[in-house]
């Protein structure tokens, strides 16, 4: 892998909760513009890995490097406040439903990350409206989150993650609560707005169908990476149709997991 294009580089990451070793020495490099799916059974450490990569959690040991145009940042060495600032300025997040702010309208939810960076409200709302339009949500700007369907709400979350033009978008089970058609639409939106624009996407999923949309699948078991497989070198993410599970060669024990 060309060191120049690696945007996130994790080395020997460990993280424990009491006696449970959620991460037991994880090494992982993620290239700029890549879509990486992190898979594994419940308790395998995949959500912890996403949280450490995104600076939500600090690892117990190991190094977590972020390479930006302005230089390298050792994320694991940052304090809470600096990691919070990093998430605000550099990353976008799409979580399973429920993490949009229910009191705010769709427009305000998307404008909020921009306002947190100091963008004036009117400018932030204009940009937010553009993102909502891009994701096919024109006319729903003033709806509260509870008044949207699951798929619409998740597309608002995708718009919110894109609003600050992040370097990396982290998604945790972004389609976990959706039916298969809606889930496919949301994944289309997520991939088009991230890797389709040269941004990096890291997604935690149980769903082989979702993983098949990503260029690389990393599998975890007991806090260790047991497999990291790229599909095709020079892969064109934006135009790739969903691939079948069989094409991916998922290990037998993972197959029954799709929700």
């Amino acid at each position: 892998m060309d060191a120049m294009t690696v945007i996130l580089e994790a080395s020997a990451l460990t993280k424990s909760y009491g006696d449970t070793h959620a991460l037991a020495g994880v090494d992982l490099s993620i290239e700029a513009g890549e879509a990486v799916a992190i898979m594994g059974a419940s308790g395998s450490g995949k959500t912890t890995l996403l949280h450490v990569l995104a600076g939500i959690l600090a690892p117990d040991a190991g190094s977590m490097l972020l390479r930006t145009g302005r230089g390298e940042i050792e994320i694991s060495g940052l304090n809470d406040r600096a990691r919070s600032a990093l998430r605000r300025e550099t990353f976008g997040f799409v979580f399973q439903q429920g993490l949009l702010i229910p009191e705010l309208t769709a427009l305000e939810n998307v404008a909020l990350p921009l306002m947190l960076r100091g963008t004036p409200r009117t400018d932030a709302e204009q940009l937010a409206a553009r993102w909502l339009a891009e994701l096919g949500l024109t006319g729903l700007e003033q709806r509260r989150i509870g008044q949207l369907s699951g798929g619409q709400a998740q597309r608002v979350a995708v718009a919110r993650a894109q609003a600050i033009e992040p370097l990396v978008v982290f998604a945790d089970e972004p389609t976990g609560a959706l039916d298969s058609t809606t889930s496919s639409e949301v994944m289309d939106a997520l991939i088009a707005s991230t890797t389709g624009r040269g941004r990096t996407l890291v997604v935690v999923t149980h769903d082989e169908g979702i993983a098949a949309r990503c260029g690389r699948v990393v599998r975890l078991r007991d806090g260790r990476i047991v497999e990291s497989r790229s599909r095709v070198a020079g892969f064109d993410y934006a135009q790739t149709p969903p691939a079948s599970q069989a094409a991916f060669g998922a290990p037998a024990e993972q197959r029954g997991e799709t929700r």
Partner: protein
Amino acid sequence: MRTLAIARLLARPAASGRTAIVLPIVAFGVATALLLTTLAGAMTFFGRHDELAFTYQALALLACALLLVPLVTLGGSAARLSARRRDDRLATLRLLGANTAFVARLTVLESVLLAIVGASGGVVLYLALTPLVGLISFRGHPLGAGALLLNPLVVAAVVVGVGLLAAVSAVIGLRAVVISPLGVRARQSAPKVHWMRIVLGVLVIGAVVLAVAQPSMFGGALTIVIVLVVAFAAANAVLGLVGPFVIRMFAKSGLKHATTPQRLIAARTVLESPKAAWRQVSGVSMTTFVAVFAGTALAMIGAVSGERMPHSQEVLLADIRTGVFITLAISFLMVACSIGVGQASAILDRRDLYVSLDRMGMPVKTMDAARVRSVLSPLRIVTIGSAVAAVVVILPIAGAALIFAPASLLTIAASIVGGILLIWLGLLATRPVLTRVLAEPVAPRE
């Protein structure tokens, strides 16, 4: 039996930690202890039959009326917290197929248990306080601890009453879960506050002013006192009716002009539930209301105390002053408890919101600023509104000269400042609840 077994399972500390169990117990305890002490104090005036007995009894009733609404508010908010903390789990139980009656039984059982535990603690606290409260002197003599011991039947009735209040609040809070298991999780509807509240509020205040201005039209002396007591309690309750509507109006304007994330979130938080925003600060509305009465009473005493009068009259004036201070102190204690409970429950209620903001990278300082703003903005409106309402009600009896006398203004100002300080301390004291809520969900097990 099955209900009990599942109640035991769910009683284990949840993500909300022990706060959600301890707070309602403490609040029920304090509310019960204050209620019993107030009742016991009032009862001491009903054993005598001399010429001043009636005056004392009337004043004791008036103080009880002024304290009744804050007491019920405190009990209600404790009950709501104890019922609400299980909303999520109960919604899950419903989704898993538990039937309506089972979920209802479980919630009511939990809330009533917490209330009874708290109320029993309150009885112990009341008994422990009697020697101290007995030192307070009325009619020239200390009340004495013995005089403050209530009939055990009355004590038992109060404990049962607190349990019933908890049960009723739990059932009301439960309706949302029972109607729609998903509704509680998704928060689909933004509650509306109707303008009829204003109309109703103005009508009741008008009726109260009329009743206070011309009490003689109601006949005998006892009737006059009852009319006064009911009128003051009604005016007090009206504040609770009108408050949410006014708060919503101001929050709407705040939303329009919000330039920062904290202002935007604060305004939306208030608009999400003006009634909840009102409950957070309603305690101060009560102290402000009581303070206007207290201030006027003190000014009245000051005005006549220079004159020559019989000894019994002098004692009466000194006693009124004592009574005024006690009423103020008790209402402040209740406010302090209400705020602690209200703030903790507001944070636990909005756990998802705070976690989401934290992950997006919103600094805890900004979240806290939004929280503080969502409480302090309504507070401004509430204190001014309550003071004006109280002045309108008391004007027919006392006259402007007494209400705006230095002693009165000083009491009012000190009470308002004290109330705001208490709310601010409540916000400060509950910040650890916020940091704990943020620390817990970021520890995934996979």
